């Protein structure tokens, strides 16, 4: 994605990683993928959350990721370095179902007004173009625990209704998530490179909560395919600090993920 369009001294991935890091409380158990969420989690461990525990769908509990050795899959042995425990994927995902995980992080190709995420099919599932890699653990995470979605803020990604629900947010809004059988979890926040959303308590539609530094509400809306809820009192995110950026760059010196 290259440098952030606001001409600031950090990239989109750096901004996302920092914002991601800040929502991770100390002592929490999080379930993450290997890109931005892992960078965010490792950053959080270095700064405000030394007791944060990371779980990966490969079956890994509490690894200790080494700078410069970022894994390229949640299922490879690098991800398992200095872990507290190695489990099989079925049982590590069952920890979500049992309720052991505080926050799950997912991404995807599209997100819609009810925070449903698509990582499977663009177009019809009968004749997609393209067919995407798919759910992995995404559906499990979003079905079972409170979830934060990390998403580049682009018009083609923020669509009123996703082509296909891979990872359910609030389904069709209101109580429809619970009615579908998903009696736990739900999307807590959607973090983009422009702003932070949560979901309205009643309608369950995306609601802008905070704008990132230098971002206007118009920039947010111009890059979306639908109009989210917009409350009167919008917060502004604190910009990434020098310390945060320094640690991130130490973790990913070859910029595998910090694009």
């Amino acid at each position: 994605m290259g440098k952030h369009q606001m001409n600031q001294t950090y990239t989109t991935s750096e901004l996302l990683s920092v914002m991601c890091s800040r929502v991770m409380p100390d002592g929490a158990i999080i379930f993450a993928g290997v890109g931005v969420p892992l960078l965010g989690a490792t950053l959080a461990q270095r700064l405000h959350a030394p007791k944060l525990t990371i779980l990966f769908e490969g079956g890994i509990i509490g690894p200790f990721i080494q700078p410069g050795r970022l894994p390229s899959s949640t299922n490879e042995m690098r991800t398992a370095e200095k872990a507290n425990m190695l489990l099989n994927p079925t049982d590590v995902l069952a920890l979500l179902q049992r309720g052991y995980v505080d926050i799950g992080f997912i991404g995807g190709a599209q997100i819609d007004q009810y925070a449903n995420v698509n990582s499977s099919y663009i177009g019809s599932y009968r004749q997609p173009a393209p067919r995407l890699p798919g759910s992995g653990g995404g559906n499990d995470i979003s079905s079972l625990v409170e979830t934060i979605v990390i998403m580049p803020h682009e018009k083609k990604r923020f669509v009123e209704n996703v082509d296909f629900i891979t990872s359910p947010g609030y389904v069709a809004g209101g109580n429809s998530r619970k009615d579908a059988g998903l009696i736990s979890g739900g999307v807590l926040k959607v973090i983009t490179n422009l702003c932070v959303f949560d979901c309205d308590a009643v309608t369950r539609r995306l609601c802008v909560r905070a704008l990132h530094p230098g971002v206007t509400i118009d920039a947010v809306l111009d890059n979306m395919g639908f109009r989210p809820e917009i409350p009167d009192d919008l917060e502004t995110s604190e910009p990434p600090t020098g310390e945060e950026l320094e640690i991130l760059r130490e973790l990913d010196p070859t910029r595998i993920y910090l694009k």
Partner: protein
Amino acid sequence: MTTGFQSAPDTPHYVDLRARLAKRDRGLRDKVMSLSEAIGTIADGDHVAIGGNTFSRTPFAAIWELVRQQKKRLTVSRSITSTEGDFLLAGGCVDKYMTSWFSQGILWGLSRVMRDFVENGKVTYEEWSHMSLGMMYRAGALGIPFLPTRVMMGSGMPEALVTSLETMTCPYSGDKLLLLPALNPNVALIHVQRADKYGNAQYDGLPFMDADMAMAADRVILTTEKIISNDDIRNAPDHTKIPFMAVDAVVEVPYGAAPHECAGFYEPFYKHMDEYADFTRKNGVPGALDYMQEHIFEPRDWTGFLKKLGVGLPN
């Protein structure tokens, strides 16, 4: 007894499943054979499940041989699929693919091969959640016809399957549950660090779904970095992850997961993975076929492929 109950096509009825198992010679017997002999036991149309995950402990040599033997009309299941999926599809081996994720790896982006096959309707493709596939193998391993779960509901996934999934209201809790049908593959291909000649298998590092898959399958073909003695197994029986009675073939294949990784033995061959990615990035399915010609069909044997990988076997 099964009349009217046909909605889970990959779940054979329990009575049939047990009849198949009863026919197997499950005694403590020498099962060591060659790779081609072991893979030769797979029939066209079989459901083949693949152990490991993404590019970890993939039974690569077994898949390599399976593609060489040009098996046809297979159902293939693997929770997370990497390059091996490309070869199985491009090799014309697969009628139905069951997975939760399919890409060489996030570093390399979408699979051009998978896209071609799915987008053009050349394969029946079922996407399951990752845990769901694990639970389906587990149901198969436990000898029960389904496991209830709290996932996949509210999503588009059930509708997009060939399998018609059932839900129920739990009589104890009132909760709505999705019933994941047991998955009982005909063959599980599994690569491990060590096993004895009877098939007692021990592996280190991430266990993945291999144990459930092995117990769910009709038969298991095991490739192993090293064959060790039964005494060594019996000296550490709490490290045995798959019991001999579930295994039908043991093949010693050093670097049997290459170019993927095998914990304690080798990391992924990233450079080779990049090279393969170049083939498909430039040229899609024909690119994959070019790679396969050179790396799968042309080498005289597995050692020949390893040589191309730059690996000299220890003596």
